[in-house]
């Protein structure tokens, strides 16, 4: 079980306080999943940071009764001087897992070859994404946090990610945020729309899609102080 209760987040801007999330509520059971639709600037990334615990909410609470991953395939925490292997070791130490049995999987999945033992600063963007995804799969979680916009790559990579995440780990819960209704339709059993700081739940994915399509025609949310 995982629950977000009355969560709000306000940021200081030069224009005054700006409320990015306003009284967001939802719960997610073990093995369930939720798709969150929102257009650019709707607060999707903020929500991801709050759920992962990188930032604290201004008010409200987030209760985690299951283990939740860091944002899937997040490359931001890589140190350029560290090799792929160093990064695997770092993650494993942080989560208390022996890295040795995981090396073959990561080497095979990332197809980095010699580069697995080279500093990340020599990697292409694609190599970095493959490594980040493999590290996300190396540690087992009850619930995966997926920001669709960061899982980019070629078709083959997409298929392999899909296989690891939604086939091999189909018993796990996940939260997926995206601006693409098609992805939600394919992968999620429930959908909500993040609109003007509020998370609006819908009974079916189709209803969420319809509301989202309609919301896209409204004028963009202006940065008015809360």
């Amino acid at each position: 079980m995982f629950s977000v209760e009355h969560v709000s987040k306000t940021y200081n801007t030069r224009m005054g306080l700006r409320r990015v999330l306003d009284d967001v509520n939802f719960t997610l059971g073990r093995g369930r999943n939720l798709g969150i639709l929102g257009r650019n600037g709707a607060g999707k990334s903020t929500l991801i940071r709050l759920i992962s615990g990188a930032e604290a909410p201004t008010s409200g609470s987030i209760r985690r009764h299951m283990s939740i991953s860091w944002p899937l395939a997040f490359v931001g925490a890589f140190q350029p001087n560290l090799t792929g292997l160093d990064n695997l070791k770092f993650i494993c130490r942080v989560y208390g897992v022996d890295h040795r049995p995981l090396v073959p999987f990561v080497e095979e999945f990332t197809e980095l070859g010699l580069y697995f033992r080279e500093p990340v600063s020599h990697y292409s963007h694609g190599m970095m994404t493959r490594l980040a995804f493999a590290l996300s799969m190396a540690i087992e979680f009850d619930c995966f946090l997926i920001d669709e916009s960061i899982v980019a790559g070629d078709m083959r990579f997409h298929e392999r990610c899909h296989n690891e995440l939604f086939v091999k780990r189909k018993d796990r819960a996940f939260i997926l945020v995206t601006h693409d209704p098609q992805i939600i339709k394919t992968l999620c059993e429930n959908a909500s729309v993040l609109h003007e700081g509020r998370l609006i739940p819908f009974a079916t994915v189709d209803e969420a899609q319809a509301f989202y399509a309609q919301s896209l025609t409204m004028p963009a949310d202006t940065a008015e102080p809360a």
Partner: protein
Amino acid sequence: MNTSPSLANCLGVQRRVLFALLMREVITRFGRENLGVLWLVAEPMIFTVGVATLWTAAGMNHGSAIPIVAFAVTGYSAVLVWRNSASRCCSAIEQNKTLLYHRNVLTIDVLLGRTILEIAGATGSLVVLSLFFVYLGWMPLPVDPLTVVLGWVMLSWFGASLALLLGAGMAFSPIVERLWHPAAYLLFPLSGAAFMVEWMPLRLQNVVLLLPMVHGTEILRQGWFGNVVRTHYDLGYMATCCLVLSLAGLIVLREAARKIDF
């Protein structure tokens, strides 16, 4: 379902995270080229040797009974241990913010990790240099090693508590670092590294003894040189200062952790 972990579990996680951060920091800062991790000790050593050379040329021991090299090594090492920890922690949270996506990594781990590394480097530098200079006969062996350790521990505690406070304060305003650099520069000549309190006129003695690190440096030299020198310190005063700084640091950090924005 009860998910609140025990204290032992938490300490276990923290120990692992600290180890992970230390390994990461060492490779990030020093790489694997040439000396690698040895730079951790080599860098402060080079500083200390440089200062010892300058002070020898300038006759900074003012004709006291202490050999000048021993005076410089004890004094400058004492500065390094508190100043470097504090300086390295100013930007620590900002530079490691993305690691907070991993729920096990907390802001205090980031600050502690850097502090441990700086204290280890300064300690290594002091040990290696003093062994070398003792071997050359330019420095005596410590008269009372336990007092030396006490002084060093107190200086390290002072450095760690200052680092905690400044590192946490940076989450509120970058002014902290702007002010810290001139403060560190101005505190150096007042820190007791380049003088003994005994050499000061009485009125000045009372002023410099307001600074906690002066006490630590005096304890260190008391232990090293024994009764050849006359030292002035108050262990209780220094411990109180460190305790207050530590508590203040922890309180500010608790607030800072809630304030960190990306």
